[in-house]
Each structure stands twice: as structure tokens, then as C-alpha cells.
């Protein structure tokens, strides 16, 4: 029987004897690893989800938003929260900028919508016909609203498939139906194909209604917009168009009252936010791991003291100090790896549970990290007790009662 096998088997045999004690000892590690991996899974999932959404927007897209959105690498922008808005005049000005090939103003309305099956709280995006192209929406049934609808302030809506199903039972049932939102009656003229995702701020287009921005003014006498989405001419450098738009906006607003954003910029901000978040999460989870490690150190000291005479016997049979050291380190590593594996298993369960409504996922580096960190904890917190065992005087250990 091999040397290592003998030692590992000895350690594991110990655990078989007291499953409960093993479990309780490694609980700190279980919780620590579960927390780290679960949080990382949620973060990774969210990050990938948002990235996918922005990548879908393509290269020639710009957003104009009120306030300073990307301040110091994070979402600052009190102005956007405080309700500064754009208006029709900005829309006209932007539409005249050379290189702007698509322009979608955005305002939104939330309210109670009455369908044939159910009444639900819904949100409507009031925008232009260009929005479908910019956001990458395609029509499944019926049609998208067009310039005529906008000119006529037509009370028409295009529905996302999810909300259509909710209100009317199925998308086909929703088409050409009437829906009233806060006492205004609309006709549903189209259903979009499921996109299964969200946009800026995590919008899930499948659950939205879309309508002509002119119609939206029914709810907003001030006729304002919360942002513009712009598609630029791919033949003109984006920087040129951006500079031009900046010039136009500066005529009416101060430098810090609006922001021009590219999806790639937003992505890098999202990335930096997630990186900071990860560091914070890991720091918090480290505390739990530290507590777990101390728990392991504690039980290992107990084990060493319980096995004092065994150490003496092994030394008498020829074990060297390093053999004893290794035996106890293997035992504490095994203990914490069991904890790490349980934590990882729990995290897998957790991810399975939330996957229905949250895009969490565990990647290979997370798994390697979980097992790596737990074995590192086993070594770090096992070394002191193991050294205590290794440095026992053989004769004292043999005499130990």
C-alpha cells in the first residue's frame, strides 16, 4: 500500500467515524465557499447577460442621456434621477445631424392594462419607428408602428410576447385586440419576436409595450423624453458624428447636463462595476472562510491532542517529523475540501434554483477557485496543529495518557 494512500485513507477513515463532527467543523468552509461561488455565479450571469444585450446593439449605436452618467467609472448622474428631460426641439435638432440614420426618442409610461384574460401592471416605451431597428426588434405578427401612426398620434401599441400572453392567453389572441391603459384605449397592431433579454437597466423587451412617441404625450403634457437612442451611418467615423451631436446639444445644455454613451463604454463601466463588486464580495466571503479556517484549526488541535499517543507510537515505529506533519495536514486539507465540495454543491443547487428568473452560472475557474481556496485553507490552518504534533517528543507522546 502506497505511503500517501495510507495517510489519506487514515484521514478519511477518521471522518467516517464522526460524520456529524466532520460536517459541523467544515460548516464554516461550506458557507464561505457557497457564498463566494453563489455570488460569483450571480455576478457572472448578470454580467454576461448585460454584455449580450449591448453586443446585440452593434457598433454604430449611441445614447444621449441627461446628466453625467459615467462619472469616475461608475453610474453617477443625479440629473437622470432628478428628472431632467429632453424635448421635441432636441429631437428635431438631432435628426438634422449629418450621420444620424436612425433616431429613437424614449419616454415611458407604467399603468394598469386590462386584457381579456388578466389585468396587469405594464410599461410602455413611447418611441419612434426607428427603435425596432436600433434595439434589434423583429416583428412576429402584425406590424410595427410607422411614420403615419406617429403623425396621426395613433393609439396603437406593439406588444412583447410575454405580456401579450399574460393579458390575452396567447400572442395570436392579442393581435388586433383592444387594451386600455389608465383609461386610454389602444389597439394592438403587432407582436414582436421573443428577444429573451433586457437592455440598459435590464429592460426585458418581451414584457413591454411599444407605442408612437406622439401618442405618449397623452400622458405627458410637457412632451419630454428620458433619452435618445441613435443609429449612425457606418460610413462616417463614429467620433465625427459624436462630435457633431455634442455641438448640437451644447447649444441648449451645459456640458454636464447630458452624456453621449457608446455601448462599448457602458460595457467597460459594467465590467469595472462587476470587478469592484467581485472584490467586495470576495472580501466579505473571506471573513466567512477565515472563520471556517479557525474552526478547522480548532478541531485539528483537538485531534492532535486526542492522538498524542498515536503520534508517539508512530514515531516509535519509525515515522519522521515530516511524516507526522503530512498526516495532519492531509487530514485538515481533507476536512476543508469536504467543506469546499459541499459548498460548491450547494452553490450548484442555488444556481439551479434561481436559473428560472436569473441568469446565474458557475464557470470552471470558480470551481477551481472553490477547491483551491479550501485546500489552501486546510494547509494554512492545519500547519500549526500539524507542527505541534510533529514536534511532540516521542517519549512524552508515548507516555501520554
Amino acid at each position, binding site marked *: 500500500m502506497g505511503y500517501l494512500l495510507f495517510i489519506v485513507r*487514515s484521514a478519511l477513515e477518521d471522518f467516517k467515524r464522526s460524520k456529524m463532527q466532520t460536517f459541523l467543523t467544515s460548516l464554516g468552509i461550506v458557507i464561505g465557499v457557497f457564498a463566494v461561488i453563489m455570488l460569483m455565479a450571480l455576478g457572472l450571469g448578470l454580467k454576461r447577460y448585460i454584455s449580450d444585450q449591448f453586443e446585440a446593439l452593434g457598433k454604430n449605436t449611441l445614447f444621449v442621456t441627461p446628466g453625467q452618467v459615467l462619472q469616475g467609472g461608475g453610474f453617477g448622474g443625479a440629473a437622470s434621477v432628478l428628472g431632467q428631460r429632453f424635448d421635441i426641439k432636441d429631437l428635431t435638432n438631432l435628426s438634422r445631424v449629418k450621420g444620424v440614420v436612425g433616431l429613437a426618442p424614449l419616454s415611458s409610461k407604467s399603468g394598469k392594462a386590462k386584457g381579456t384574460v388578466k389585468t396587469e401592471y405594464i410599461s410602455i416605451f413611447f418611441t419612434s419607428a426607428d427603435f425596432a431597428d436600433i434595439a434589434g426588434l423583429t416583428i412576429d405578427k402584425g406590424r410595427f408602428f410607422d411614420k403615419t401612426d406617429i403623425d396621426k398620434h395613433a393609439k396603437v401599441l406593439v406588444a412583447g410576447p410575454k405580456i401579450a400572453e399574460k393579458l390575452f392567453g396567447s400572442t395570436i389572441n392579442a393581435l388586433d385586440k383592444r387594451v386600455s391603459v389608465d383609461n386610454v384605449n389602444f389597439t394592438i397592431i403587432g407582436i414582436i419576436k421573443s428577444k429573451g433579454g433586457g437592455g440598459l437597466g435590464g429592460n426585458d423587451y418581451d414584457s413591454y409595450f411599444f407605442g408612437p412617441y406622439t401618442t405618449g404625450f397623452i400622458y405627458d403634457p410637457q412632451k419630454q423624453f428620458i433619452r435618445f437612442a441613435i443609429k449612425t451611418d457606418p460610413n462616417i467615423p463614429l467620433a465625427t458624428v459624436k462630435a457633431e451631436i455634442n455641438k448640437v446639444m451644447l447649444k441648449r445644455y451645459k456640458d454636464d447636463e447630458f452624456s453621449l454613451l457608446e455601448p462599448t463604454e457602458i460595457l467597460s463601466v459594467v465590467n469595472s462595476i462587476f470587478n469592484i463588486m467581485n472584490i467586495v464580495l470576495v472580501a466579505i466571503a473571506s471573513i466567512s472562510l477565515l472563520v471556517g479556517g479557525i474552526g478547522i484549526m480548532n478541531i485539528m488541535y483537538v485531534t492532535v491532542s486526542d492522538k498524542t499517543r498515536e503520534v508517539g507510537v508512530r514515531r516509535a515505529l519509525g*515515522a519522521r517529523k515530516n511524516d507526522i506533519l503530512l498526516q495532519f495536514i492531509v487530514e485538515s486539507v481533507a476536512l476543508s475540501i469536504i467543506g469546499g465540495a459541499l459548498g460548491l454543491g450547494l452553490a450548484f443547487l442555488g444556481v439551479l434554483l434561481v436559473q428560472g428568473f436569473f441568469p446565474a452560472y458557475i464557470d470552471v475557474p470558480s470551481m477551481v477557485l472553490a477547491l483551491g481556496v479550501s485546500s489552501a485553507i486546510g494547509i494554512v490552518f492545519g500547519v500549526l496543529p500539524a507542527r505541534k504534533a510533529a514536534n511532540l517528543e516521542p517519549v512524552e507522546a508515548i507516555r501520554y495518557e
Partner: protein
Amino acid sequence: MIKLQNVSKSYRVDEDTIFYALKKVSLEIKETEFVSITGPSGSGKSTLMHLIGLLDKPSSGDVIIQGKKISQLSDDELSTLRNEFVGFVFQQFNLIPKLSVLENVLLPTVYARKKLNYDPEAKALELLTKFGLIEKKSSFPNKLSGGQQQRVAVLRALIMEPKLILADEPTGNLDSKSGHDIMKLLGELNRNEKITIVVVTHEADIAAYGKRVIKVKDGQVG
């Protein structure tokens, strides 16, 4: 084979008292001897045996094994000597409770640094067969009688083919019959395998198995 020259072992009891467990002991154990060490409880027998077995170091004087002073050997070298040269048998058997009988017998070979010229497992099985314990090879020590446990301990001491077996009160926890069986077993090993045997005991009838008796009293050899 092993010589003690003027060996003392002392413990500091408090600030200004030093207790001598052994005082200026000189003796030699020669190859193929069967020696009994006797004396009343607390006289220093175990202390003496631990020094002979390289588990302990003298406070003064020299322990010389195969011409080398152990004070000049490193901890690892002493471990290797214990592993290859000495086999221990204890009063409390001291089998490892979570290892099976076979694994207990094999344990010293796990710590061997030299290449063994035999297959450890085959040898362990052979020993277990020869001494009537083969049916117990997968049992754990707590399922064995005292006599069986002590026999397993003797086999564990034998597996490395040592020159010397040291037994500290090997019959102390056994009934009379099992005790005499163990002593007969040690006698056979001495006769047939030419293994040097040192048995520590305070019982006269056990000491009688030895061909030479060393009497210890108050830390001194008489």
C-alpha cells in the same frame, strides 16, 4: 549492539530540585541476547527502555548504537534506526484503532525509507498466517481479545525484520495464560530468528524468561 555509558536521565521538578529517573547507568545489550529488566514500579525501567529504543536522549552520558553515539544523530536518522533496527511492544498494545489488523502490521513499512527486499503485504499475510491471526486480518483492534492484540503488536514489531525487540510490560494487561503465550513467542523469536529481546517487567515469573536479568532500583542498575 547497544551500549549505555554513564547514562543519567533527570527531570527538573521545580526551581531547585532535579529528579534523577536514572543515575549513571552503564550496560551493554549484546546481539541475540534475551534480557529482562526488572524492578519496582517507578524505578526507571521504562525510562531505560526508551533510551535503549532511541525514543529518548540521556541528560548526560552516551548511548552508543553500532559504534555511533546517538547524540550525533539527527532526528530523522534516529527515526530511521527505530524503523529498521528496533521493534516495540507496549503494555497497552498501542495498535492504531482506525487501521485494520493487516494495516497495523504493515504500518512500519509505510515509514520505511530503504527499499525492502520483500513484498510488505505478502510478508504481513505470511506472519498473520503463521501466528494464527489470518482470519482477523480485516478486523479492527477493538474486535480482538487482549492476547490477540498483543500478538498483532508483536507482528507489527517483526515486519521490518528488526535486530532488536523491546517490550515494556508486554504482559501487564493480559491474563496469565496469554501473558505466558506472548513470552513463549518472544522466546521462540530469540531462539529461531536470533532476534535480540529486551523485556521490561516487574513480575518475577515473566522476568524468568530472560537469560540475563538486569535489576533496576531507584534509577540505578544493581
